[in-house]
């Protein structure tokens, strides 16, 4: 009997705004609460499953040399909004080689067929409000320097641009140094800069979408 009432409530929940019986059944249940009857409950309805287009669970860097096999390195978040750290694989490149770096950015909670799955595609579509910044502590001869995270005007080999002719950074080119080295830090920052992106906007403007650090070594 009690169960019946409360199940009613739940059943009406789906279209409670329209259902005139909803209030009535609530009042019934109310009376039950008032006379101190412990309400035996049916299940609460769970929230509808949402697409999560903003979540990024996996970033794959593909370093494609002018000749030879591409090198793939991933950064993967085992629990997205949870407390576990992201796992980033080390980057090992050959010395004295020019690579094209392209990135795949994936939301693993979405089905591969979904629009929400491929975030990289979305960034490409909104190139005018996104920009990648890079920094490194060694390992490259071109571009020279240490990257543009600390100083926007420093050199980075951007190989793509947005509709305004400003760099995006989904595709970049890199030439490694001739000698071997280890324990270089390679950092990638993606900034979301709606109405902020300009020829002078920096890695400190806007909101951070991606900020990853990789261990970089150069092998002979």
């Amino acid at each position, binding site marked *: 009997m009690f169960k019946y009432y409360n199940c009613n409530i739940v059943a009406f929940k789906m279209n409670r705004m329209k259902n005139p019986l909803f209030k009535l059944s609530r009042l019934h*249940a109310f009376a039950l609460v008032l006379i101190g009857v412990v309400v035996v409950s049916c299940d*609460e309805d769970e929230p509808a499953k949402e697409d999560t*287009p903003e979540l990024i669970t996996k970033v794959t860097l593909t370093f494609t040399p002018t000749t030879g096999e591409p090198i793939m390195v991933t950064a993967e978040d085992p629990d997205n*909004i*949870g407390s576990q750290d992201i796992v980033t694989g080390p980057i090992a490149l050959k010395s004295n080689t020019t690579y094209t770096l392209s990135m795949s950015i994936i939301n693993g909670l979405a089905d591969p067929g979904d629009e929400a799955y491929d975030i990289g595609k979305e960034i490409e579509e909104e190139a005018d409000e996104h920009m990648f910044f890079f920094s490194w502590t060694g390992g490259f001869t071109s571009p020279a320097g240490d990257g543009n995270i600390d100083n926007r005007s420093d050199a980075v080999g951007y190989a793509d641009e947005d509709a305004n002719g400003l760099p995006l950074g989904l595709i970049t080119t890199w030439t490694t140094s001739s000698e071997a080295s280890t324990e270089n830090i390679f950092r990638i920052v993606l900034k979301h800069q709606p109405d902020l992106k300009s020829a002078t906007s920096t890695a400190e403007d806007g909101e*951070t979408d991606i900020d990853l650090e990789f261990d970089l070594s150069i092998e002979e």
Partner: protein
Amino acid sequence: MKALHSIFLLLISSLAFSQSAPCQLSLKGKVLDDQGITLPGASVIIVELGRGTSTNQSGEFLLESLCENTYTLSVSFLGYKTLVQKVKLKKSENIFFQLSPDETMLSEIVVQDHYDHISESQTTAILSGSNLDATRGKTLGAALRSITGVNTIQSGPAIFKPVIHGVHSQRILILNNGVRHEGQQWGAEHAPEIDPLLASNIVVVKDASAIKYGTDALGGVVIVNPADLPITPGIGGTIHSIVQSNGRSGILAAVVEGASEKLPGFNWRTHGSYKRSGDFNTPDYSLTNTGFSESNFSAAFGYHKNEASGFEIFYSHFGTELGILKGSSVSSEEDLQNAYESPVPQYTSNFSYDIAAPKQTVKHDLIKATSHFHRGANTYSLQYAFQLNQRKEFDLRRGTLSETPSIDLTMMTHTLDAEWEYEPSENNIRCIGINGLMQSNDNNPGTQRIPFIPNFSNYSGGLYFIQKVNWKQWKLEGGVRTDYRYYTVAGRDYLNQVYKDQFDFSNVSATLGATHKVKKNGFFTTGLSTAWRPPHVAELYSQGTHQSAAAIEFGLLLDESTNEVREFSTVDFKNEKALKWVNTYGLTTRNTQVELSAYVNYIFNYLHLRPEGITQDVRGTYPYFRYRQTDASFVGVDMLLNQTLSRYLSARAKVSLLAATDVSNDYYFIYMPSNRMDVMMRYEHPLQGVLANGFIEMGVNYVAKQNRAPRVVSIEEIEDAKAQGINLFETDNRMFDFVEAPDAYMLAYVTLGSTVKLGEKKLDVRISCDNLLNTSYREYTNRLRYFSDEVGRNVSFSLKYSF
């Protein structure tokens, strides 16, 4: 309005209710002010009979044809506080009434009716009359700050949450118009969905006073009361307009009310207000995207057959669209550091009325029906209310997602309250009541984000008993209450997988209070009360970040290593309970009013967020916070001094001191209000002619630096430790803050005003200036202190026309 009433009364006194034969008694009297000066034209109304008279040139009045009975007399005069007094008439009597100017706060006597929940043996503070008028145009939370011991947690210039004695959010119960206010109160940026412009008085109960109102009142209760519906036939009202320089805002509010002449006993009121503000500004820059647009409406309709019974229905709508400082939108800790180091928040642009993401839209609708009737010594009252709360929060999101709310919740609450009061004599009152609550909170689909809190239903019931006894110079009151709450919950975890649970809570709370009259003018009140609260669903299940918070929050039920949502029954949870002891000494003499309160509030199993570690996702490194329980103590003092210095000059000082401690960890909490003081001088002159009551007040508000603030762990330190593979919080999870508490500050303000008499109507004019010296400062309890200064100088001009 009151003068108007008295004219009506004069006109209709001949038509007044006929009295039966034995009603031959009369009541003669005189109305004086506090200086002993007679007040001609003051109105004296017998509330029960709905009739009255005005005083003559000598301040005298005469009421005839009265029965042997207890009458409530309401004595009012423009510029003075309305005095409401019960008179037990056994024989014809001669009586004096002394009215005090409408300025001093605590000597005010509140009009009490059946739904007024104020008890004499509790420590309360009242905001009414000109003190309330001085706060018109502010939000409820900001208005409450003028009460000693009440502060706010702020999220920018327009979002204020009340803090009573250091305790806030779920631990403050708000009683709006007699109804337990139910909205989304779990976030720091969730202000109460109430328009204070409708209130005729706001009472803050500083005891842990759960007995009458239900669970949760661990810190105290805020009671927002509209005026009683008018009892004398006629139509009256007010039109109020306020413009302010900071934010270039405008407020227009109107109240129209009346009582039917043809259908005695029918009365009504409608109220509407519209508020619009653009970006606020600090002394140096604009606070981009802090404007808001708010519109409110209410209507009340009542029928009071006689003093013995009545019925009232009330509807109100609150709606706001509220911008949040754009520069506070950070998605990683590094952004937070950039924001903090930047002298001007990023995204700062010129003044605008635009409201864009991050923002929130909130609607709150309330319908209630109340009825009461007396039979002999018994009063029965019944109240049903339905509240619909709809909240949408919009964050800065990629692409067109900014148009999609990232939190979208609909909450529906039904409450039913029944009470039986038995008053065999004035010295013996008892009361038994029952409360029921049914609530559902649902995530509306389409946010494109895993819900921050789950869907839930809440079924609660409570039963209480209160006994009041007057004994010699003592007023004693005791109460006991039992509550039950049942939750069913369904949400989605970090993998977007469904979880479900159901569980319940029950507990007992009690209160004991006593007021002792000390000599002629003083009183001493002591109150010991317990309160408890079941946890809010947000405290159990929170998951992720919400509205511009550079921190991840995890509810108590989330597993520390796997992030999975645990079943409630498997978790060691203890209800939060408070034991609060408040002592107040008050003294009111001809020239001096003193009130001194000292309190200790010990909260067992205090549920709060504390830092647990740092985690990394693709956006960067974040500290994460988990809900934990600890024992907490709040010790403090509130002081108020009002001193009349000469006939026209008075001074007022208010001080509130607080020391909050995490007892289990012997440490401090974050965002606790620091010690503060307010000193004001007031010059008031009873002007002649059309102007009445000209006044000017000037004051300073001093807020000390919070020295009891937790350690500072800077973002750089977190990052550096992380780079070395050290988790700073693993071994030391004491509370921390990203930056040091802001410095002490002092603000000056000035207000001048007067009343223009237009026949029986009047126009109140008020000009005030806050932050007179345009001081740049930051407030510790404002969550946006990481990003921006507080608002600069604000000049406000207010016109209130009463008819």
